[in-house]
């Protein structure tokens, strides 16, 4: 049964792949508890993983002196995940379109695209330094048990 109460948990983690895996696993559990179906749980977990990879790899560049944070908030309406880094900042408007013919065979550049494909809302905020990505998945129309 889905949990309809509001809950929030946050982590501050190293800029490592272990942190990416931990954030992905937490996203999966959070999405399951929010009552999403199996496919949506998988999509949310992937989107959050991509956000964490972005923070660790492109934001903090694996810098051991920099950290990432991840928070998971479940409200009656939504699952809200925020991932921050301490990097130079990300301007989403400058990212090339991975679906454009000239980019389709590129070996990278699909992370933000997948995040947007799988979440209902994606917001970027500049932190000076760093970037905060907010990923939102609606629990409405009501999930079973809510």
């Amino acid at each position, binding site marked *: 049964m889905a949990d309809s109460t509001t809950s929030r948990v946050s982590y501050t983690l190293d800029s490592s*792949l272990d942190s990416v895996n931990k954030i992905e696993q937490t996203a999966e559990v959070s999405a399951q508890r929010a009552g999403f179906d199996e496919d949506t749980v*998988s999509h949310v977990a992937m989107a959050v993983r991509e956000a964490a*990879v972005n923070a660790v790899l492109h934001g903090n560049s694996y810098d051991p002196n920099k950290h990432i944070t991840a928070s998971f908030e479940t409200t009656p309406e939504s699952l809200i995940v925020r991932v921050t880094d301490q990097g130079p900042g990300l301007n989403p408007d400058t990212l090339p379109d*991975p679906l454009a013919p000239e980019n389709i*065979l*590129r*070996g990278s550049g*699909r*992370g933000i*695209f997948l995040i947007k494909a799988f979440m209902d809302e994606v917001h970027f905020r500049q932190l000076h330094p760093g970037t905060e990505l907010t990923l939102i998945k609606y629990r409405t129309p009501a999930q079973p048990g809510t």
Partner: protein
Amino acid sequence: MSMKVQTRQVDGITILDLSGRITLGEGSVTIRDAVRDVLAKGSNKILLNLAEISYIDSSGIGELVSAFTTVKNAGGELKLLNLTKKVHDLLQITKLYTVFDVKDDEASAISSFSK
């Protein structure tokens, strides 16, 4: 769970049976090294069997694309076999499904390579 690769030969085609996750880090490096090894041994007709791939992220997708272009630039062919629903859906979303030659039967996949 990390990614594992087993290599076999069928009618001159190198089949890489992949299992696990293709993600940033170990999985991506494993597939890159495996394809590089096949090319170094003089084979350039490669079939990637993804039946046991449970998960792939954007880095893994990028690695498949890189493998595809590397083999193509070497004058060879790289095809995909037995996509799971998750991988199939990801290739659809990223419009890569029509870029790759995707097969769902090993025998017909083998016979589809140019002789």
